[in-house]
């Protein structure tokens, strides 16, 4: 039978997909334990979610949550840092500590035959870290050195300058890694105090995904964590960062990198929180604007102009309103033109060239049909479920995803484009060669670029 190449094959019936069923229990000490059965392979993924991230840093100590998170596995439960590392190594487990804006997340992935040992180690790390002073001094020095190195990494400079300019004195103004002055001033006592304050069973959720029964997983976790005593204070659920002072007028900032062959760009504004009712409409908007390969901005800047290897936009949904931003890296000579094209696209999607029915249909289809793909591995499932805990989302969020996205119309997309994209209030950060970029930006009629530095 030969192939009909005059048209694409018709899509078969949608395959059925069952979202993971979450069994939830709470220990007397307040610890929430959520388990998901995922048979098939002998692997287990554990996530411990502590809702304290960079936004919980004291205003004069950016980087404290991240350094505290990093200290957890520098010795715990009576083991030294090296002994603990060897114990994890002996079971082939990989521990990943991720400190974001709103939370600290510890992920431990392992072969299921080691789950008991892994849980015991995770409990030590989370609840009985040594937080030894000599390890603190060593780690702080490593972090300062890392920040020193990052002075030469354009994406890092751009991210840091963008957050600071966008959020000013707000809790989201700094990245989790903090700054050199803050790290140099940080003390061992501050880390210990932060750990006491933030790490509490009443605020923590453990998510387990593995090839065992709910009951077996629950009992193993309960055994490991039932001895964790709640702190003295009240059960302070973590605060949602407050509102941000509005940016007045569009601004352009330059981090000088003389003779750089490319300019690293960030353009954006304050976006939306994860719990916004506009969440699904914003996903559709972002997908067709710059969230996937076939999107207006990537097709324009990469496929039509050849300015860049790639460009993408993101709504970084958080507990509070996170940033909306465009990220790309463009050849130095076309910097101003690329910024102009980006602003044109933001304006166009609002009014002059609103989203077409075809674009909206493509974005919706790509989001809904692609959704099951993100539930393939145990770690993916654990991460998805941890999002429910972090953002206090209802249990049926996964089931609701497809119908809500499907309910998004062109008008909805245009409405949220107008509500969330205001070119006249966007901040542009350029890490690049000022000799080329500044005159070009002036010639394009952009606001006079301000030089900024990143500490």
């Amino acid at each position, binding site marked *: 039978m030969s*192939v009909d190449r005059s048209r694409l094959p018709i899509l078969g019936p949608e395959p059925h997909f069952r979202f993971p069923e979450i069994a939830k229990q709470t220990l007397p000490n307040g610890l929430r334990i959520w388990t998901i059965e995922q048979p098939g392979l002998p692997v287990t993924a554990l996530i411990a979610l502590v809702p304290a991230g960079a936004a919980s840093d004291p205003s004069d100590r950016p980087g404290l949550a991240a350094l505290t998170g990093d200290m957890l596995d520098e010795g715990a439960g009576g083991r030294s840092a090296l002994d603990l590392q060897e114990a994890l190594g002996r079971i082939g487990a990989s521990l990943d500590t991720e400190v974001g804006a709103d939370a600290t997340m510890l992920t431990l992935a392992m072969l299921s035959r080691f789950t008991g040992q892994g849980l015991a180690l995770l409990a030590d790390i989370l609840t009985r870290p040594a937080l030894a002073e000599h390890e603190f001094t060593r780690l702080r020095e490593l972090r300062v050195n890392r920040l020193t190195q990052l002075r030469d990494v354009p994406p890092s400079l751009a991210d840091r300058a963008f957050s600071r300019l966008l959020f000013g004195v707000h809790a989201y103004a700094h990245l989790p890694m903090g700054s050199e002055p803050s790290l140099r001033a940080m003390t061992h006592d501050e880390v210990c105090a932060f750990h006491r304050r933030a790490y509490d069973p009443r605020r923590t959720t453990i998510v387990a995904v593995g090839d065992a029964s709910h009951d077996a997983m629950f009992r193993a976790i309960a055994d490991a964590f039932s001895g964790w005593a709640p702190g003295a204070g009240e059960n302070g659920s973590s605060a949602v960062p407050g509102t941000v002072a509005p940016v007045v007028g569009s601004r352009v900032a330059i981090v000088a990198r003389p*003779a750089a062959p490319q300019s690293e760009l960030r353009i954006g504004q304050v976006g939306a929180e994860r719990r916004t009712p506009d969440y699904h409409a914003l996903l559709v908007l972002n997908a067709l604007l710059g969230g996937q390969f076939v999107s207006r901005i990537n097709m324009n800047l990469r496929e*039509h102009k050849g300015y860049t290897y790639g460009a993408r936009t993101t709504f970084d949904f958080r507990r509070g309103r996170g940033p909306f931003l465009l990220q790309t890296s*463009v050849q130095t000579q076309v910097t101003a033109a690329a910024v102009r094209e980006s602003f044109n696209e933001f304006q166009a999607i609002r009014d002059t060239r609103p989203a077409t029915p075809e674009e909206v249909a493509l974005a919706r289809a790509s989001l809904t049909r692609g959704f099951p793909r993100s539930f393939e591995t145990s770690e993916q499932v654990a991460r998805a479920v941890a999002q429910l805990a972090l953002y206090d989302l209802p249990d049926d969020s996964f089931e609701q995803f497809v119908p809500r996205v499907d309910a998004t119309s062109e008008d909805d997309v245009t409405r949220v484009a107008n509500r969330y994209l205001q070119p006249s209030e966007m901040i542009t950060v350029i890490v690049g060669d000022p000799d080329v970029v500044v005159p070009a930006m002036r010639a394009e009629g952009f606001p006079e670029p301000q030089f900024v530095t990143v500490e």
Partner: protein
Amino acid sequence: MDVAFTRQVLDNGLNVIVHEDHRCPIVAVNIWYHVGSKNEQPGRTGFAHLFEHLMFEGSEHYDKGFFEPLQEAGGMVNGSTNADRTNYWAVVPSNALEIALWMESDRMGYLLPALTQAKFENQRDVVLNERRQNYENRPYGLAPMAILATLFPPDHPYHWLTIGVPADLHAASLEEVRHFFATYYHPRNASLALAGDIDAAAALDLACRYFGDMPPGPEVAPVRPAAVRLTSEARLLLEDRVELPRLYVSWHTPGLFQDDDAEMDLLADVLTSGKSSRLYRQLVYERRIATEVAAIQNSREASGFFQVIATAAPGRTLDELRQAIDEELARMAAQGPTSDELERAKVQFEAQFVFGLQNVGGFGGKSDQLNAYNVFLGDPGWFARDLARYSQATTDGLRAAAARYLGPGGRVIASVVPRGRPDLAVADSTAGAESGTHDPAPSNASMRGGSPAPVVWS
């Protein structure tokens, strides 16, 4: 731990491998073409990768780019080129398998009628930007090309990076694209793996329908470069826009799946994986003369190279790092790892291996791995044997491998230092062998002088 599969070789030579996994309603379509930058010629580098980009720009019967229909079906799409092979993959909902096969076969059979000068020039610009982003504008980004150019002689196909040299990319023509396509992109030089929520027999039928009527194409002669050995130590100096100096030490080692390849992987793990590893503990944790250290066995089809990369702490010189690394390697060559160290490395590999089986698609997923075994070993069913290479390694095997390959005699030592601070480099370093890598735009790193480093290949 094995992965059941069916393989069928079509009349035109195409290898089709099918694997069922019904855990998630998705299917991976993964195709390898056995061509990479090692099939290129000096003066024409970067071509295999540039060509990969053109494969996404549309084909005769669907000339609107490769992404859209698969994105609309809920799929994810990507591809990559390295020295030895080019792979393309899509992961789609299982009801979209036929769309993915239609698209994949159309670009295998009918790419050229849709190819235009405009597409070609656009993607050349994109690739030049990819190079600026990942090499020229990235700290230490020019070290890899200087090291490869010194490890391998100019006529050896691993002498250059897959991303290529800008002058070569500028010199490439549409005519060469046509020739390249005819030479390498046909069923006889390809392996197609389908893995996921499918019925094996039905999937094989579909693959036959979509690919079976294509002409086989010419036989591709394997690239078998003569073995290279360095008979002396070369010391390169690069000045770059960096804050902290970094040392790269590189040795020739066996290639992918060859004897001692797994031992080198395990050695890399024993040396630098985790705080308690030999070199991390020495350099970063205890003596604090380095901020980071990593070892890697780069396993390629024809041969490999092993690297130890360490960044100096402020105020430290690369000679201090080199000395500490040499001492540790000498100990390893004399005594080998402890059995506890080896056991930890083995269980790490086992865990990573099993974690990898969770994905049917993507880079390193099961479909990609089936093709790797098939293309390089002629047998997709190599999973268990691959794992056994690691589980059967011995402490004495690692010791012997360290002694054989990681000696101070034949190797390349590259020092990347902040501009104006050659004093931080390993003593007696000379400017790296420059191979015309500079873009018209001012580049970020420079190699001092211009005289080639004294190096002897044999």
